[in-house]
């Protein structure tokens, strides 16, 4: 299918000029008259009862305008799973008990940040320490204490998947392997620490500018926790300095800023520090995983038994979704005749884990891909061949999940084999060098509605004007991944007008149509893209009659919108400019503007996702067997993201994902002591890759046309974050014989495996 020229083009981001000149405004850049500065008091203990809080000294400090504790706020628990109210386990400020080091206990606002901090230091809290639970094993042991009294055994959610004849298939298997894995926590490490400003101009109404991926979710949860109608809360756009899943919930500072702005009548700003982020912020779930897989001797997968305990930390956050998706990702790439998943989301006294790029998939795929490589080796089958034998393809069914409507996985495997020189290099192994493979599949947005929205999942409003311009209003958020540009490309393609002629209003819950679930689950391109197309089609329906009347056309004609003109497809000369067409349409509408709204919610696409991306990646590493240091020399990727809307943006997603995957495999780790305190709270010690650590990359596109996607597009954001760690793990094994079953790979682990450290 041929797409309009602007689709797939590498158009520079439209917000880039503002960003390179420093004009782009992020939340902490906002400053308002009479604005107050907020600070949080956090628990120094991982598990304790709050016996007494004395805020009198803080309140008495000159310049302090408000001090609040859990006792002052409406104690409405919140969480993103509104459909399951008992899963909503969080309060903005702790009441009676703290559950992790960093749990928010009180908040202050004052005329400047130093005064607010001073006031925080003056608050006295008396705690009674409780026994700590710092691992899933401790949490689920007999007689363990409870993080939340309501959750017996500290398991907050169980997810089971079970299809096919598991025992029967294992009985048939020629080759069975059982392994246990542990994966470690890492953080989003978005460059912009969280920040927000709240302002209450009218009693009982509040406007919040906040660094978020989910303005609609923040609006709804803020309203419920403040005890206000949703319509009284407005969440507005600022530039967001990265999210990666870490900014998709209501956060305590958003609540405190809003609550104190209403109480004081003055704007209130909160900005976190990097130490706050690293020590207390959301993170990717550490997991303990058991996996048993069975194959025929020819490498055909027969069955998988996949049991996962997610270390959720002190609150559910987005953990339930990760628990659900981890199971779904456990069987997405390959055909498993029988599959059983048992996932448990476990509370511990640690900072809550939540969504992070890949959302349960990096962990599931690390295990699945590693076992695939182990099986290939044991069965004497090439690791790419064994994948081709089992790969999903278009039309395949993931039981109870979906029918895959487009899949270029096998092509990806062939391509990546070719561009990496896989066969040749494996034939001539070199000391300390190795190639490894990892693959992925990911959802293009979820069909699930745990947030229980009453609205469509995505919406867009398009207005067109007689000067040939258009306005696109949508709640969808650009957090750096580029939909502000991609959505305008789609609209420009639909209306046939230059992209520069499209003004965008985004991420304002008061003026953009309801709703949008936010930027997560790789949903925006497909879902919001479809909403934009829907709105554009409706606009075109308003414009087309003008041409029929103007040209006195036979009803069989089709009308095209291209190059700023509206014309008869069969006779392009017959037409008028887009602006003229709008003008004429307006004349007939007696003052009613030309505005249309479009919506998208997946229909008849199962309960997981309307479309799936696929890909394969090969890492080439060089291991210094003296020091154990690993240098990733090159990454080869072939991926199927459908038809890209903006090629450069897709490349950016790929390259950024490699940085994150490489960090996950080799460098990044949140290290905690036995009191539940995070030890590496600076970027000096939380080691994410620098420009010097990044290998060059080579990639091949496998274009499929996804029928459900806008112009055939699928996701490209999260899936790519999955394969890098398993690929590097495999490459290190090929280079040294060390197989990492407990991430991350460290030089020391490599040397121990080589018996160089006893």
């Amino acid at each position, binding site marked *: 299918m041929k797409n309009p020229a602007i689709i797939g083009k590498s158009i520079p981001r439209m917000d880039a000029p503002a960003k390179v000149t420093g004009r782009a405004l992020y939340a902490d850049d906002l400053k308002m008259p009479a604005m107050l500065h907020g600070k949080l008091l956090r628990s120094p203990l991982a598990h304790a009862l709050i016996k007494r809080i004395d805020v009198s000294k803080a309140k008495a400090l000159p310049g302090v305008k408000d001090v609040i504790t859990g006792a002052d706020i409406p104690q409405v628990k919140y969480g993103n799973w509104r459909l399951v109210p008992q899963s909503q386990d969080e309060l903005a400020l702790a009441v009676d008990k703290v559950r992790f080091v960093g749990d928010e206990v009180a908040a202050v606002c004052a005329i400047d940040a130093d005064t607010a901090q001073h006031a925080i230091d003056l608050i006295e809290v008396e705690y009674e320490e409780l026994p700590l639970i710092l691992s899933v094993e401790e949490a689920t042991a007999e007689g363990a204490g409870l993080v939340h009294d309501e959750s017996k055994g500290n398991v907050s959610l169980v997810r089971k998947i079970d299809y096919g004849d598991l025992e029967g298939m294992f009985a048939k298997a020629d080759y069975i392997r059982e392994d246990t894995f542990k994966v470690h926590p890492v953080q989003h490490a978005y460059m912009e620490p969280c920040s927000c400003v709240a302002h209450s101009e009218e009693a009982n109404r509040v406007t919040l500018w906040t660094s978020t991926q989910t303005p609609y979710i923040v609006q709804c949860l803020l309203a419920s926790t403040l005890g206000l109608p949703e319509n009284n809360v407005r969440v507005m756009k600022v530039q967001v300095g990265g999210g990666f899943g870490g900014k998709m919930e209501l956060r305590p500072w958003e609540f405190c800023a809003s609550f104190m702005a209403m109480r004081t009548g003055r704007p209130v700003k909160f900005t976190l520090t990097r130490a706050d982020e690293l020590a207390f912020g959301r993170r990717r779930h550490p997991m303990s995983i058991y996996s048993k897989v069975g194959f025929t001797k020819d490498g055909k997968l027969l069955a998988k038994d996949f049991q996962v305990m997610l270390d959720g930390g002190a609150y559910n956050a987005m953990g339930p979704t990760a628990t659900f998706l981890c199971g779904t990702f456990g069987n997405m790439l390959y055909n498993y005749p029988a599959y059983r998943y048992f996932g448990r989301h476990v509370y511990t006294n640690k900072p809550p884990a939540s969504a992070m790029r890949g959302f349960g998939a990096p962990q599931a795929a690390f295990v699945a891909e590693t076992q695939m490589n182990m099986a290939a080796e044991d069965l004497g089958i090439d690791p790419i061949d064994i994948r081709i034998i089992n790969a999903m393809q278009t039309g395949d069914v993931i039981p109870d999940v979906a029918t895959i409507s487009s899949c270029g996985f096998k092509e990806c495997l062939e391509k990546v084999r070719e561009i990496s020189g896989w066969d040749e290099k494996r034939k001539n192994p070199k000391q300390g060098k190795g190639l490894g493979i990892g693959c992925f599949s990911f959802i293009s947005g979820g069909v699930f509605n745990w947030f229980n929205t009453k609205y469509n999942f995505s919406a867009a409003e398009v207005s067109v004007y007689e000067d040939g311009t258009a306005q696109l209003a949508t709640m969808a958020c650009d957090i750096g991944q580029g939909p502000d540009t991609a959505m305008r490309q789609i609209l420009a393609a639909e209306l046939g007008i230059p992209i520069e002629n499209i003004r965008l209003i985004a991420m304002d819950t008061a003026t953009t149509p309801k709703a949008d679930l936010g930027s997560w689950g790789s949903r925006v391109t497909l879902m919001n893209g479809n909403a934009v197309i829907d709105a554009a089609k409706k606009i075109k329906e308003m414009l087309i009659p003008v041409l029929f009347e103007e040209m006195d056309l036979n009803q069989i004609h089709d009308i095209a919108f291209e190059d700023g003109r509206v014309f008869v497809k069969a006779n392009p000369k017959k037409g008028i400019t887009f602006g003229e067409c709008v003008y004429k349409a307006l004349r007939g509408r007696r003052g009613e503007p030309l505005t249309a709204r479009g919506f998208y919610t997946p229909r008849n696409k199962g309960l997981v996702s309307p479309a799936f991306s696929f890909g394969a990646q090969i890492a080439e590493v060089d291991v210094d067997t003296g020091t154990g240091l690993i240098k990733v020399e090159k990454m080869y990727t072939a991926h199927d993201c459908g038809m890209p809307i903006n090629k450069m943006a897709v490349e950016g997603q790929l390259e950024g994902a490699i940085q994150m995957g490489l960090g996950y495999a080799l460098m990044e780790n949140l290290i905690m002591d036995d009191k539940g305190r995070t030890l590496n709270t600076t970027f000096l010690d939380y*080691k994410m890759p620098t420009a010097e650590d990044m290998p060059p990359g080579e990639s091949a596109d496998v274009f499929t046309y996804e029928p459900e996607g806008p112009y055939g597009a699928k996701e490209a954001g999260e899936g790519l974050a999955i394969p890098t760690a398993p690929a590097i793990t495999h490459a290190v094994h090929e280079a040294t014989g060390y197989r990492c079953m407990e991430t991350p790979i460290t030089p020391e682990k490599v040397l121990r495996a080589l018996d160089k450290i006893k």
Partner: protein
Amino acid sequence: MAMPQFQVHQPKTLESVLDLLGRHRSSVKLLCGGTDLLIKMRAGAQAPEHLVSLNRVAGLKTISYAGGDGLVIGGAARISQVGKNAEVRRLYPGLAHACSVMATVQIRNMGTVAGNLVNAAPSADTAAPLLAYGASVVAVERGGRRQIKLVDFFTGPGLTVLEPGEMVEAIRVPDVSPRSGSCYLRLSARSKVDIAAVSVAGFLNLDLEGRVIRCRLALGSVGPTPLRCPEAEQILEGQTPDEKLIAQAAAACVRASRPIDDLRATAAYRRAMVQVLAQRVLTQSLDMAKGGTP
């Protein structure tokens, strides 16, 4: 934690610096790059009431080299300045390397070599090469000057022999004889923005027959201070090094090290790496020394 309050003095001469240090000796710190000090102050680890800035004092940034006398690095010379200096790169490659890879570009533009030493972190990147080059510190106070051998300078993590009121005016590094070789290697899981988990610096000077006249070896991040390795040095001095002897010397370096487990590495890994890095440092230094030019 809010930044504590303090007063900043910005004198223009060394005399006024020394006056101020003397006058406020109970609660004063020198400020130059500030890249270590201000972080510690914000964390509440230090709270001096007075900061005396060296940034407006003339003449302290000079780096000079004279054959026979060696290298003099001014107390306010920036790390990046030292790393880019042609003489340093030619004659003191280990120091040049340390000054080109430690911390970040911005920190190297701000921070000073003297500050890196006075901060006295066990991992201080310039300490190990300067120890290997046999450097001394020129300390000055109102009453006068003294020269302190760097090997005697560090007394513990964050601690040196400097007295209150004293400051580092310059670092003196002996000249390098012909047939010398030297090298600095550091290890960390990431290439930059980092603190070395282990580092080793070495210096060798050979006679015409290829025997070692002088050897100095120094280690970073494997003890409470940067360390010299006298036993290893003695193993090599007077000998013609080969692979076996180098391995023995490296083993002596391991014995000199007193590493701990921390979040950057375990003691066991550090010990093993001292062996590996010391061998590599000695091998590279030997190759360079045999090349005839330092």
